[in-house]
């Protein structure tokens, strides 16, 4: 049996080659991990936005919906910007009154989910608080 073994140069060279290959592989796994994390964040943010939108849309009036989210609208109406923490995200609800000659009030709603000050997902919708209608 050959007991001479490898020279120091051979051992060092093989360790360096393996190190480079392992570094590339590690980078690949880390990239997969961070991509997974981002996908999970987008899905969770989507749930936070959709659940907020459903609470507002399902309420009898926009004021009731905001109250269900523990948000207190100002005395002059619900128009304005509200921020709330939901499922680890900052949900920004922007309400503005749309002009028009309607028996009720038409509000446009913009609901965004932010994380670390960066917008992840957002939706634009509207809610009609009927005058002669059941809202």
């Amino acid at each position, binding site marked *: 049996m050959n007991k001479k073994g490898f020279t120091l140069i051979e051992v060092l060279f093989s360790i360096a080659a*393996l190190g480079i*290959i392992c570094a590339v*592989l590690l980078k*690949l*796994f880390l*990239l*997969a*991990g961070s*991509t*997974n994390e*981002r*996908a*999970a964040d*987008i*899905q969770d943010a*989507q749930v936070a*936005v*959709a659940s907020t*939108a459903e609470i507002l*849309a399902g309420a009898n009036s926009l004021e009731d919906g905001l109250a269900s989210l523990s948000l207190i609208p100002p005395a002059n109406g619900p128009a304005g910007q509200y921020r709330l923490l939901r499922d680890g995200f900052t949900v920004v609800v922007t309400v503005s009154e*749309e002009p*028009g*000659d*309607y*028996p*009720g009030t*038409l509000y*446009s*709603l913009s609901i965004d989910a932010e994380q670390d000050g960066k917008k992840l*997902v*957002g*939706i*634009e*919708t*509207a*809610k*009609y608080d*009927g*005058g*002669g*209608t*059941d809202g």
Partner: protein
Amino acid sequence: MVKRALTCKKGASSVLVILLLLVLVVFGVAALTTALSGLRLGQKVSDWNESYYRLEGQAARCWAEIDAAVSRAADTGGPFERALEKELKQLGFEAALKDNAITYEVRTGESRLHVTLALDMEQSPRLRPAEWYQIQP
């Protein structure tokens, strides 16, 4: 020659190391592909939700227009149903009155939202959402 190659132990450890690295590469690529698919799916769901809520917004705007039309028709003093049909024809979208219900559709791209508003005539005319569903292409 073949027998020699099969029985020779030279380079066996290198073959094992290369095989191990190959397995790791396959796992890494599979993990990245799965993660990217998850990300794409998340973005797609986000786009669908955005489109759905935009449709809902349009439907709410149409509802407000119809409510205004109902109110104007009630104020005319004449036969309500005829006045309402006339008012509905003047709207910028198609809304049909049938059996005390007003039906209309809103669309963005290929997806549509079908809405039926029930018209309650007991005291003064009142609208109530009766059906509200999305039609996927």
